[in-house]
């Protein structure tokens, strides 16, 4: 790979988001979160702190949960991204989304996309997580509404659901 020299002006970027390819240009300093929201319209990526603490902007980058507010969009060149908008298959929700609904694991909903992503990251690594493991996995995501209790319950339920049912996706 040739070193890419940026100054001045935008850089070329190609990536896949929720299974769809995008090719575009972006100013190097633009965060991945802003790029996803503003350039591609994935407004389910919420900005809660923009300094990598609250987790509201969490997405899956090549399958792993990351905070898109502290990644540059240019760093996502060539990658595969999943946002909350891409999880449901038409009317069928992802098991984690479904569990969040069934356990009312949200109130204002602003943390929810990031929480769901953190939960998915956990469940792809640990099939039957314990409660402390669930709490640890969610600890990088702040929720100001729920006190976390219902979120933890939802993730536990989703884990049981995915452990006993054929694989989603």
């Amino acid at each position, binding site marked *: 790979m040739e070193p890419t020299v940026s100054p001045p002006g935008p850089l070329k970027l190609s990536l896949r988001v929720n299974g769809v390819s995008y090719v575009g240009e972006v*100013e190097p*300093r*633009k965060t991945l979160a802003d790029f996803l*929201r*503003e350039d591609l319209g*994935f*407004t*389910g*990526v*919420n*900005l*809660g*702190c*923009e*300094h990598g*603490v*609250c987790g*509201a902007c969490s997405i899956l980058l090549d399958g792993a949960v990351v905070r898109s507010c502290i990644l540059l969009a240019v760093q996502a060149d060539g990658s595969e991204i999943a*946002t*909350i*908008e891409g*999880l*449901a298959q038409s009317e069928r*929700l992802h098991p984690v*989304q479904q569990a*969040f*609904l*069934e356990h*009312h694991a*949200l*109130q*204002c*909903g*602003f*943390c*929810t*996309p990031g929480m*769901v992503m953190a939960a998915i990251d956990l469940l792809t690594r640990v099939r039957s997580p314990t*409660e402390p493991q*669930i*709490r*640890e996995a*969610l*600890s*990088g*995501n*702040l*929720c*100001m*509404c*729920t*006190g*976390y*209790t*219902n*979120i*933890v319950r939802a993730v536990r339920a989703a884990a049981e659901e995915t452990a006993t049912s054929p694989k989603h996706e």
Partner: protein
Amino acid sequence: MNSPWTGKAVHPREDRRFVTGRGQYLPNVSFPKMLHAAILRSIHPHARIVSIDVTEAQKFPGVACVLTGEQATQMSRPLRSLIPLPVEVPYYCLAYEKARYVGEPVAAVAATNRYVAEDALEKIRVEYEPLPAAVDPEASMKPGAPLLFEPLGSNLLWHDCFNYGEVDEVFRQAAHVVRERFLIQRYSSTPLETFGCIAAYDPSRPYLTLWTNDQRPGQAMPIIAHSLGLAHTQIRFINSDIGGGFGNKRKPPYLVLAAVLSKLSGRPVQFIEDRRENLMALVHACNGAMDLEVAVSEDGQLLGLKVRDIADEGANVLNPTVHSLLKLGNITNCYTIRAVQFDGYSVMTNKCPSGANRGIGKPFMCFALERMVDEVARRLGKDRIELRRQNLVSPESMPHTSPTGSFIDSGNFPETLNKLVALIGYDSFQQEQAKARTEGRWLGLGLALAVEPSTSNQSSYILTTKKRTASGAAEAAMVRVESDGSVQVVLGDVGSGQGHQTAAAQIVADELGVDFERVHVSPYFDSLVSPWLYTTGNYSNKFSGTDVGAIQGAARKVREKIITLAAHLLSLPPQELELADGAARSKKEPHNRKTLEELAHVAYRDLLALPPDMEPALEGRFYYRPAIANLPDEQRRVRNQLFVSNAGHAAVVEVDIETGKISILKYAIVHDCGTVLNPVIVEGLVHGATAHGIGAALYEEFVYDEQGQLLTTTFVDYLKPTAVEVPDFKTDHLESPSPFTPLGMKGVGEGGAIPAPAALVNAVENALEPLGVRFSDLPLTPERVWQAIRLARTK
């Protein structure tokens, strides 16, 4: 009315949009040619603004306009304070002449995007002349303190001393008088979505459209209209989904600022706080000090209180005294105390403006009271449960009026306590504690009881304003059966995560006898469409107190019309009809019916089939006001908030005495908010409020240094509890319906935030009882705990 829907654990319908990432939060709203604003903020706690040079910023590529405080004074009027001041103060959307706290807006830029706007801020040159700052509230109210507003001659915004009952007599006769001083820190609920707005000003009409997550449209509208010199008809105010509010999201100055920038640039302007701005400049709950004296009889009866309360309002000149009034109104908590003296002070300092925050004032009231009750029990050698039980307002004496005029409409406080004691396992705990101590583990159990009043009575502000700017309480709603028979509901108060849309649909479905799924509730507030009044908005836990009445009232208007129309079409007397299964039908012969769709067809299209004197359409608007709101009487007693829920919290904690670390091992909550409309929603709100209380007790604090610099401006320094710190909650419920609300419901959003700090600190003190450690302030950081232990051990 059948009630298949009310009381049912319906899963909040809002949730589906949110779990799929389709929330219409303010930051997701965008318009062509929209500009993005950024604000240059004071780096000084207190400084004279000598000059501002915006030349370079104005020339910066991508910048549409730059605004300074000086220009703001030409394009807007000062924001009008809600309390009377001897002279008008220059409180504009930007600092003018002086900056009064770190983070105060000094200048603003609107540019093509936020990146460019922030670049341009760096080109603005401000010359400041730093001034000494008023930081400590008690020093700030003394003569000679640096003044925030010189024309006022003092930083003391409000002082009053209230006497209720025979205070002196009670204290004279008391067997014991216990005095303690309590302190509370600055903290805030910090909704995950920060404050934001979009202003689009059309000079040709002129007309201002505002999209915002400001949670109190009814109060914001007149303030903005006055500042901008617009009639209310020239402003359209829109809320969509709000990413959490908790009282924090009320900021008329930002709305005015965005409007002025839009006027200057001729384009829509969006302003969204970043988190640093949110933490330094949106709103903090007042810090404060309370000197509390309680008169106690020989046998442990709490007879009277003397309170000296100082609320540090920061630079809040817009709506101060709210915390003070709510402490005053609820100062006897759930006890039968007969006499109260409340000496209250609202003081300005060079800090972030204070304002509403989950529980407003009541967490501090409860902290002081419930800590004091434990202290009295200790001094008298009585059991803390017994002492509480002996002093609780009994269910037989409901409704109970407290000495300050607060009206406790319903509740069974002793039963709340009984359930709490059972839930936390109080009786077996002592053994557990003793055993743990032999193993070198320091366990403690603490509890606290709290009233959780809801629905502000605007009349209570007359106590501080001395003016009848508003009185009573109310909210509005509209219900409309559309021409296809589906039902549309529009609310004055759309909520910010409390499931209002679900709850409203449950109520309307039952009133109209239709399926829940046929009822759509708009997630939007739009002042052009939504019915509203001054009290409209999402605050004071008021859904149950006013909103339910409005929804029900509007539905009943429609219901009445449906029945009249159906009676006409079926040629039956109206009293023989009922609404069920989506139709008006004969009670005796249910097959004799007209569906809502058929009726709506007549009401909207086949108009000549209507009774000759009937107005077309099936639509009802209702403005509901609770009858029990009153005005202050001659003794200055007033029903401060109107309906009183209650809660009991108990915690078992373990203290690591070597490090000061506190671990919550068990947390029990008993909650009573009257009739439960939707248990799923209630449970969630109880958990969430409790987490806020835990944050305030153990983690959260806005720290100012002695010069007034704010040291906690990111989520790295201002610590919110995470899923690891917040324990699993054990909950139990009572249902003591209010006789004074339409469905017997009472407020539910604050009950956790109020008693949690007291319960936790009581638990920590109980754990450290052998060492005699006492805490008077919050939060209990490990270092504070360790220092206190060390101090106690060296005594």
